[in-house]
Structure formats: C-alpha cells, structure tokens
C-alpha cells in the first residue's frame, strides 16, 4: 500500500517535471552539462546553450508530428 502510494507520488512528479517528452528533458540536462564543461575548460560557453535548446525543441517537435 505504502509502496504503491510512493510509486504514484514519484510518477506524479516525474510527469510534472519531465512531461510528454522525457528525451527532451535528458537532452536539456546534457546541454547544460556541456556548457558547464566548456566554462570549466576556460572557453566562452554562453553561445552553446541557446542553439542547443532550439535543436532539442526541433527534435521534440519532429517526434510529436511524426506521430
């Protein structure tokens, strides 16, 4: 009973945060990690995230429209 409620609680938060497309959420996290890596290496990193986010959005839309 408790395990089932905990599972439902976890599922609710996963769906609340990750939404319809979990792949996009993972890709966003990876893009931020790459930005952190660039910054840690002393490279200008600000330019990376905006186009990366747009690529993630485009890929997510393609998955949605291909049905």
């Amino acid at each position, binding site marked *: 009973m408790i395990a089932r409620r905990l599972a439902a609680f976890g599922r609710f938060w996963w769906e609340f*945060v990750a939404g*319809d497309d979990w792949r996009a959420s993972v890709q966003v996290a990876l893009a*931020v990690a790459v930005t952190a890596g660039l910054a840690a290496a002393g490279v200008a990193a600000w330019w990376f995230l905006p186009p990366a986010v747009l690529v993630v959005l485009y890929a997510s*839309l393609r998955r949605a429209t291909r049905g």
Partner: protein
Amino acid sequence: MSAVFLVAAAFLASAVEMVEALTIVLAAGISRGFRPALAGVGAAVVVLAALVAALGPALSVIPIGALRVTVGVLLLVFGLQWLRKAILRASGHKALHDEDAIFARELEQARGAGLAGRGGLAGVDPYAFTLSFKGVLLEGLEVVFIVLTFGATQGSIGLAAIGAGAAVVVVAGVGVALRAPLARVPENTMKFAVGIMLTSFGTFWAAEGAGAHWPGGDASLVGVLAVMVAASGALVAALRRRRAPSTEPAAA
C-alpha cells in the same frame, strides 16, 4: 528590465493556470453546488500556501550559482513543454485549448457522477470537493513552481508573487462576475508567450549557473528572448507548411 519580465511572466503563467482552474471549479460548482466546490478551493489553497511557506525559505539559503543552474534546467524543461505544445497548437498539429469544450465535458462528468456521494463528510459533496481540490492544486502547483523559481533566482519572490497575485485577483474577479468559463481569454497565445519566457529565462540562468558569462550581462536576456521568438515563429511556419491531421488530443 528583468523585473518587468519577472512580473509579466508570473502574471501570464498564473493567469493561464487560473483560467483552467476556474473552468473546473465552475463545472463542479454549477453541477454539484458551490459550497463543496469552494471548500475544495480553500483546501487546495491551504496546501499550496504550506508548500510556499516550506520551500520559499529553503530556496533562499541555496547558493545562487547552484540555484540558478538547477532552476534554469527545471525552467528549461518546463518551458520547452509549454513551448512545444504551443507550437503544435499554433501550427494546427494539436487541437487548440478550448475552455468551453472542457467546461462542457467536466459539467457532464460531474452531473453523471450521481448523487450517491452527496452529503459525505460534514455534509460536503465529496465529488465536487475533490474535483475542485485537484483542479486548483494541480494548476496551482505550476504557479507555485514558477513564482518560487523565478523569484528565488532573481532574488525577489515578492515581485513574482505580485504578478501571480494580480492574475489570481483578475481571473477570479472576472470569473465570479461572469459565472462562466473565460473562453474569450487568448489562452493559447498566452501559453505561447509563457513558453517563450520560461525557455528564455531557463536558458539564461542555466548557462549562467553552469559558469558561462553572458556578454552584456542581464541585457543578454533580451537577445535570448528575441532568438526564441524568431525561432518559434519559424518553427510554427515550417510545421504549418507540412501540416498533417491532428493526432494529439487537447490537454492542459
């Protein structure tokens, strides 16, 4: 400039969620009675207030760098969900959010739920109570999330709360006056704007929290916003050109 974005984003996001919550509460109230529906609203507000009271101070003690990267990633994930749905709706690949249709469906379900549950605990109809409670809690959670993350990252939960509070007053006031779902609110356009704002703020803060330095500091946010607006418009235009029959059902 950031303060204006902060209040505008909190206002728009809260207004959209309030319109959706109002539709559910009205359906519960009209079909089953306003007493249990408003009791559900009250209970949900208490839970949301407890969440804000618990999480607000906790967020303020997290170092700003760690907070910005965490909040940035969450906002990006959240914003992309909104933007994705908004682009699909604007390009005709997903049915537009229709409060009239949702209201009619909720009303029918509430009326069809039967009278067996009426007069439950303390004479309160549990169906109407639960319907209102869940509707306000779920829509309110998104508002709480946006207000807390925006406010904490910008160092002003108060400003974000003002934006959200103004939306609650406006939508609730109009809803009480009309006693009808606010179908004329340009909800889909507002969702598009909120999606772009959340994604832009998320991109800006996540990059900054990850250690990147934006040229021009906070002024870069306007540039990020402009890029997101232009790219979203281009994506809508591209998807319209290769429009296929709607495959996804309308959802919140």
